[in-house]
């Protein structure tokens, strides 16, 4: 059996015919689906599948952006807090505008615009601090992670920011309805993933991200505007956090200091499980999509079966992440 890698700059190619690096995540996903189907007959029902996909969408949309950031040699720890802050801001702005604008399309568009602009600005701030100010991505985003988390707690005065009930009903279709029975979050996730895959593999920007992550000096000497490309990855990620938040707000209709907790870890984990190299230089968006699905399937299976307590979800995810990185290294050692 031989496997050829389609992508341009695949890292190590396994010597023994099967390329674990490519097949690993896919095999893991198939195994999980089989395990799930054997353990619970409801697992493959349309309802459950839709539910899993819709819940994956938030992390998934963010993880696609994270793939570019990591491929270009960066990291963003602030996305979970950023989502919470944007959700809080969006709710606050819409509630404030409600008396003058009334329930309707204008106030919804205002909310959507707020989320998109906030995401862009937040990503831009991260990016500028990292590129122009030359501060480590880890430090910058650790800082902004704390700042956004604290800001949303302050906006909510330590409690919960709730969307006006009428508005909430009006917004609900953003999460619950869709086209042909497929809900909006799934559709948006699919579109984002497809665009992300095309951008990564088939545009100059994707190639630049890989080159920068691999060796930013070479990129600089090759007339690539390294700072600007890096900035774009953070701005893009911020925008995607905004998009994910737009659909997250109607789901619960509220935001608090507990919103989006650990999303950054799930997003980073999904990227790494999918085969993107943590140090940068190689990334694949389809892998990230599979990584997201693997993570949410584990949670779903634990919820559907009694064998293992769902409280252990985090532990199992942790094991998977470490395993994924070990596999990545082994395929590198064969180099």
């Amino acid at each position: 059996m031989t496997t050829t890698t389609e992508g341009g700059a695949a890292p190590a190619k396994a010597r023994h015919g099967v390329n674990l690096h490519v097949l690993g995540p896919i095999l893991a996903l198939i195994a999980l689906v089989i395990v799930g189907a054997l353990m619970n007959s409801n697992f493959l029902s349309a309802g459950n599948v839709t539910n899993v996909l819709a819940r994956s969408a938030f992390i998934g949309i963010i993880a696609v952006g994270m793939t570019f950031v990591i491929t270009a040699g960066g990291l963003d720890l602030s996305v979970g807090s950023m989502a919470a802050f944007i959700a809080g801001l969006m709710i606050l702005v819409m509630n404030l505008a409600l008396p003058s604008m009334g329930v309707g399309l204008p106030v919804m568009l205002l909310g959507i615009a707020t989320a998109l602009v906030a995401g862009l600005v937040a990503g831009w701030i991260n990016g500028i601090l990292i590129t122009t100010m030359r501060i480590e991505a880890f430090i910058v985003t650790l800082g902004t992670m704390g700042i956004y988390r604290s800001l949303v707690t302050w906006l909510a005065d330590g409690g919960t920011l709730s969307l006006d009930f009428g508005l909430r009903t009006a917004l609900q279709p953003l999460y619950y309805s869709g086209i042909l029975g497929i809900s909006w979050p799934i559709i948006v996730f699919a579109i984002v993933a497809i665009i992300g895959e095309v951008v990564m593999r088939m545009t100059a920007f994707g190639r630049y991200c890989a080159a920068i992550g691999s060796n930013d000096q070479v990129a600089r000497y090759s007339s690539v505007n390294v700072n600007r490309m890096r900035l774009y990855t953070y701005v893009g990620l911020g925008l995607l956090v905004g998009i994910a938040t737009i659909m997250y707000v109607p789901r619960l209709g509220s935001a608090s200091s507990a919103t989006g907790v650990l999303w950054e870890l799930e997003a980073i984990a999904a990227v790494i499980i999918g085969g993107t190299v943590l140090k940068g230089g190689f990334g694949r968006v389809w892998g990230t999509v599979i990584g997201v699905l693997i993570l949410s399937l584990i949670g779903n299976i634990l919820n559907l079966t009694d064998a293992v307590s769902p409280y252990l979800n985090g532990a199992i995810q942790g094991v998977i992440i470490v395993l994924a990185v070990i596999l990545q290294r082994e395929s590198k050692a064969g180099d």
Partner: protein
Amino acid sequence: MASQTISQPRLALRSVDRSFGPVQVLHGIDIDLRPGEVHALIGENGAGKSTAMKIMTGYLAPTGGTVELDGKPVRFGSSETAEAQGVVLIHQEFNLAEQLTVEENVFLGRELRRGLFLDKAAMRRKTAGWLSELRCRVAPTDRVSDISNPDKQLVEIAKALGRDAKVIVMDEPTAVLTNSEAEALFEQIDRLRSEGAAILFTSHKLDEVKRISDRITVMRDGVVVTTKPTSEMSEDQMAEAMVGRELKDLYPVRRGALSETPALQVEGLTVPGHAEDVSFTLRQGEILGIAGLIGSGRTEAMEGLVGLRRHTGRVRIGGQDATIRTPKEAQELGLVYLTEDRKSRGLVLNMGLRENLTLTSLRQFAKPLLDRRAEEEALTKAIRDFDIRTPARDTLAKNLSGGNQQKLLIAKTMLAEPKIVIIDEPTRGIDIGTKQQIYDFIHRLAAEGTSVIVISSELPEVIGLSDRVLVMRRGRMAGEVAGADKTEDAIVRLAMGLGAASREEEPA
């Protein structure tokens, strides 16, 4: 060691074979290193020199034949076992922990202790002793990341001294050194030789081989072509033995008259901390050499010119005033710089040939999606035009030999279709056959009307290749030589700031 006769080799390879998978790279080679002798190992890139050196020093095991130490067969399980027995390899790419100090590096893995604690004072004292023997000016407490390449080289040698090395194998020790620095290194090699060390080194600079070695082994295609005393071989004979054919004149001759039209005019170029008030004019189709010691600001001035560094000054391209803040802006004006550091600035070693080739000019291929087929065509053309010899089309850049990496880097730069190209060290670490190809190529480029600036530390190269040579010294233009004045002596005097012809070392 009293009973040892002079002729007994300290370390010897006896009909050593080595294969990597199905590919055999060494075919029954014999080399012996004798105490008190400097042995030069020469050959083109890919001849098997590195593999032979790695087998001598325990980094690789032979797949056939034996390694003998003091007449007895040995099997070094690893480089550590070899080092423990006094056989040390000094790598071309340094093996130093950049964030540690010089002293910590010299004693890494065999730190002196007093009770539970490190005996820092003793280690510092000994390190300082070795460094001063080597006439190296760095302090034991300096961080390795802060010291220059030649100093790193000397620290590597100090490390070998500290390990009581009986056999020292050096992979191109002078590749990163200027002539005067190399001369200082040779004095140390002389001293080590007189103390009875067996030394093997490789170099592409045949004048150095002539100057320092006692015996020469020439390798070609994985076999030893000849081993002879240095006194019996001229530099021409060495080159011919390496290449396996007669070499005609290395440097092509300019055909046709030089245009008077200026392509690039630079006035008062200043790169803070590196170059000051540099002015020159480059004519269309001209090959302009820039010489100077390492640290004279040659590279930094040119990096400033193309927007890789902050700079001030007036630049005119084709008579038009030009503002260049980024390499991209320079490229749009037809000005491209090719770095001297192909491994960490020129090529993304972990990417394929195609991705590397098109990186500088990727916008040409984005419509807006990348045109994969056009990229493949460009690679086919580059492999043909630049004679890039690659094991496979879809290999990673790091799998190419140094010479072929350099050709790929040149192909990558030329794909941006520059009108003015600055080539920094066009042939560093490259064998003589490939050098000749690169010289021919540069001349062809100039004949087609491209203006070329060549920065080089090798004086014969910069003289043989260029129409005029500018000499830099301490960040300033020290002078210009052309025509009959274009001699090594004149350039060295300008570079050193000397009135009289003497080769004294420049105080730092």
